[in-house]
């Protein structure tokens, strides 16, 4: 079994237990770097797969919440090296498979081969790179796949069918179906035609599909869960952490 297959296995296990998979997202080291690992452990108890955001200075696909978390984490000294060091120090590992979400430049600066090696050692199974379209992705994909790690493709409601087919085939771990034509953290609810779109992506993909962007409440998770394997919850969880509320209780509240 390739390392990236752990992602799909965890998502499928949730579905087989009769529930949509939950994929919580946090910006690593936010709000407080000192709380990073304890927070990670808590959300990995409820989350089936955990998405770790690597802070970047120019998060162009993100809304205000993730921007704020990214800038603040950077200000407090969080870097990819620091994150790997923290993950390496976790005894007994984290309960859920990890995927990293990073804009391309921090990965480029780290070096792709070194990245794949450290990610593998740290228990990371895959990467989501929001500013790396398929056409530019061969080099990173090859470096990751050499270690059994996966590059997770994003698809959106604006993606034409032919391209959708190509991206679903190329994706590893899961297919990240962006629910809206927009950035993360949208507060206006999920679009009405979401189910057709998710059914289409799920129909095309041989691996699980997770929906993300704009998912904030239990009813969103339930709605998405009827047409996709899982739901990704980012901004709403980050805002919970900002309020000092219990992230485990928040994630539990999202379960239908």
């Amino acid at each position: 079994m390739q390392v990236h297959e752990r992602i799909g296995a965890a998502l499928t296990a949730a579905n087989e237990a009769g529930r949509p998979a939950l994929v919580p997202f946090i910006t690593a080291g936010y709000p407080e770097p000192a709380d990073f690992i304890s927070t990670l452990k808590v959300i990995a108890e409820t989350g089936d797969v955990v998405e770790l955001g690597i802070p970047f200075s120019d998060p162009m696909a993100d809304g205000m919440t993730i921007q704020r978390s990214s800038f603040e984490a950077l200000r407090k000294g969080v870097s990819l090296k620091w994150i790997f060091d923290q993950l390496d120090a976790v005894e007994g590992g984290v309960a859920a498979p990890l995927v990293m979400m990073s804009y391309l430049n921090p990965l480029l600066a780290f070096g792709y081969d070194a990245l794949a090696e450290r990610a593998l050692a740290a228990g990371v199974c895959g990467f989501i790179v929001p500013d790396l379209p398929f056409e530019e992705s061969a080099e990173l994909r090859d470096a990751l796949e050499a270690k059994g790690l996966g590059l997770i493709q994003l698809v959106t409601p604006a993606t034409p069918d032919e391209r959708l087919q190509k991206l679903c085939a190329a994706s590893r771990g899961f297919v990240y179906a962006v629910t809206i034509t927009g950035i993360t953290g949208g507060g206006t609810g999920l679009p009405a035609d979401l189910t057709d779109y998710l059914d289409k992506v799920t129909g095309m993909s041989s691996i699980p599909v997770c929906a993300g962007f704009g998912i904030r409440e239990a009813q969103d998770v339930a709605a998405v869960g009827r047409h996709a394997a899982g739901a990704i919850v980012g901004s709403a969880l980050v805002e919970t952490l900002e309020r000092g509320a219990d992230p485990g209780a928040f994630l539990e509240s999202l379960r239908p």
Partner: protein
Amino acid sequence: MSTMFAADEAKRLLDAAIRGEMPDELGRFGPFGGRYVPETLVPAFERLDAGVQEHLHDVTFQQEFRRELREWVGRPTALTFAPRLSEIWGAEVWLKREDLAHTGAHKINNAIGQAILAKRLGAKHIIAETGAGQHGVASAAACARVGLPCTVYMGAVDIERQAPNVDRMHRLGAEVVAVESGDKTLRAAIDEALRTWVTDPAGIYYLIGSAVGAHPYPYLVRELQSVIGQEARQQMLDQAGALPDVAFACVGGGSNAIGLFYPLLGDDIELVGVEAGGTGPGLGQNAATLATGTPGVLQGSYSIILQDDDGQVQETHSISAGLDYSGVGPEHALLQATGRVEYISATDDEALEALEELCATEGILTALETSHAYAAAKNYAKRNPGKRILIGNSGRGDKDMPTLTKYPARTRKHAGA
């Protein structure tokens, strides 16, 4: 001087650039360029690319574009001999006067060209970013001209230091959105424009202001700005009787520089791009991207950027908002790596001094951005007496009055002493 390529590879890439084969179909200028954008924007970029291929060199587009340049922008802009500056510098100095173009800078060439394109592509709404405000004003004017609504994203820091341009944009009918995130300057404004475009990739046309970003923008902007170098080359032959020995242009994102340099690449002319040296050489003190940066991906293309060891893009400083940017167009990265263009910097103080000298000797209040090119040209003239120098006078300095009033006019003080 090229550190990136072996000599034969540098020559091969440069020859291809001179033959007009850059960028390739993937938007690459050698290793630089490409298209690093969120998936939501990929279909929009593909449509834009197809639209550029269909229209940009189409006869009817070119007729409309050329007519607007002539009758609305006021082209060709003058080539001005600078006799008093020449005497002081010990050189023969010629100025390509983009400050005389409508709205006061070269930005209008690109803005009207892209506005015409947007109209042809069926856009409902135009968005633009701006640093110094010149591209914002040019976009507002061009959108009014073609009859499309316009929203301009501008960093909160820039709004403060370029207040006259904000008012001009409003009067030209544009909405101006203050960007409070990130560094609150040009880079944050581009990020915010991209975020907005993601919300309606089919209806919005993003009118980018410099030769930066994902393919096809660096190509599109170069093609629209090349009128500067085409005119200047012919005017030098007509008025000076010869091509210049050297040409200088300031470089932020690099649109006026690529516009001036591109038609001169195949000539025996030294080309010098001048970046903002700010207050010093340290990271964060300047915006000398090509002089001190490293390769990376920022805002859609692989180019040279100012970043730390972790790949985090660094904030910049320049007295001129238009040069205050941590990236640079990918074609400049190629021209530097092949050794064809030399990129140097001038400091805030040198730029201020050059601005005053040009005012006093030639009666031209140039933009703070442009002043950097003068400062570098003056230093060059000192070391190389008797040269024929062409300077891209990219814009006028009226917009800089709020900044300039903070600095006492040295020449006036001397005159009164």
